[in-house]
């Protein structure tokens, strides 16, 4: 071949990641585990929401957690105090989790003993949404002190999630955050999205959020009936 030739490729750059994500999804589906990819900016309350969710579901669903952080195990240590299976992934500087990292973490979890797996992604509103992990639901937290303009600045994540949890609503009296405008904007960009107003500090709204999570698992649980 000497003359310049154009070769059509048309291949998704993340196809290698997506294939492993599909394997993760298949493995977790076989165990009838509902998998939630939880994304948010740093300090919005991801670990606090996970702790609240574990407590709210403890008599209904067996929850496991994968904690993704750039470094340290402080989040995993907090979750471990609840006595549930938790694996810490340190990404070593990478700003998001990817499917191969989750695949390795899954080998350390007792999949037969789980109903719900929550994966806490690295605190970041940009890249995590581009990397499938094998999740069934994408959920993000937007906290009140971050302001009500985040959907404008990070449309990519707001259009991609199944639910938005608005955390720290106990701070509404002290912070400018127009909840009506926020909800209208988010629903406009993503008409099927569920929005939950919660406070992980006071527990407000957690019951409704946890009920929704439990409901989302129903299809998986039913599929599990008759399978031994």
């Amino acid at each position, binding site marked *: 071949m*000497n003359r310049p030739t154009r070769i059509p*490729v048309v*291949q998704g750059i993340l196809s290698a990641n997506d294939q492993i994500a599909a394997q993760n999804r298949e493995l977790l589906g076989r165990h009838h585990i509902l998998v939630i990819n939880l994304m948010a900016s740093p300090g919005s309350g991801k670990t606090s929401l996970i702790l609240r969710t574990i407590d709210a579901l403890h008599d209904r669903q067996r929850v496991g957690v994968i904690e993704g952080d750039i470094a340290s195990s402080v989040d995993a240590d907090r979750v471990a105090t609840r006595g549930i299976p938790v694996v810490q992934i340190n990404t070593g500087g990478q700003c998001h989790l990817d499917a191969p990292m989750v695949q390795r973490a899954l080998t350390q979890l007792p999949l037969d003993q789980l109903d719900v797996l929550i994966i806490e992604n690295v605190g970041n509103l940009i890249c995590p949404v581009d990397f499938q992990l094998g999740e069934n639901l994408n959920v993000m937290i937007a906290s009140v002190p971050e302001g009500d303009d985040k959907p404008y600045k990070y449309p990519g994540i707001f259009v991609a999630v199944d639910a938005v949890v608005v955390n720290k609503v106990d701070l509404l009296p002290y912070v400018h955050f127009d909840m009506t405008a926020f909800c209208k904007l988010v629903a406009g960009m993503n008409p099927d999205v569920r929005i939950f107003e919660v406070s992980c500090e006071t527990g407000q709204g957690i019951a409704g959020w946890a009920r929704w999570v439990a409901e989302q698992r129903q299809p998986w649980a039913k599929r599990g009936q008759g399978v031994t």
Partner: protein
Amino acid sequence: MHELSITQSILDIVSEHARRAGARRVLAIQLVVGELTGFVDDSIQFYMDMLSPDTLAAGARLAIRRVPAQVRCRACGQEFGPQELNWACPHCAAVGGEIVSGREFQVESIEVE
């Protein structure tokens, strides 16, 4: 930061297709990047310069075609390009809808010799 692993994926895809075509080297790489993805052109170019020297793609020209976001209005069905601060349909003023384009992230073609 994630453009490093992304660029490695691009190089893997490009090298694979170039090898299959029996190419001696890659002259150009055409990418398609949607506006709603979080990938930064300059950063991909930076890592390409760093990772490509020992590959078939050494010195290849990187061309990135940006695809703007297009949304189909749920109310009136017309397509529109949402502006940064405005997701309202210019035809009927309803807000938001289904994303038609803007999430692409592909190697579209390569030029080899």
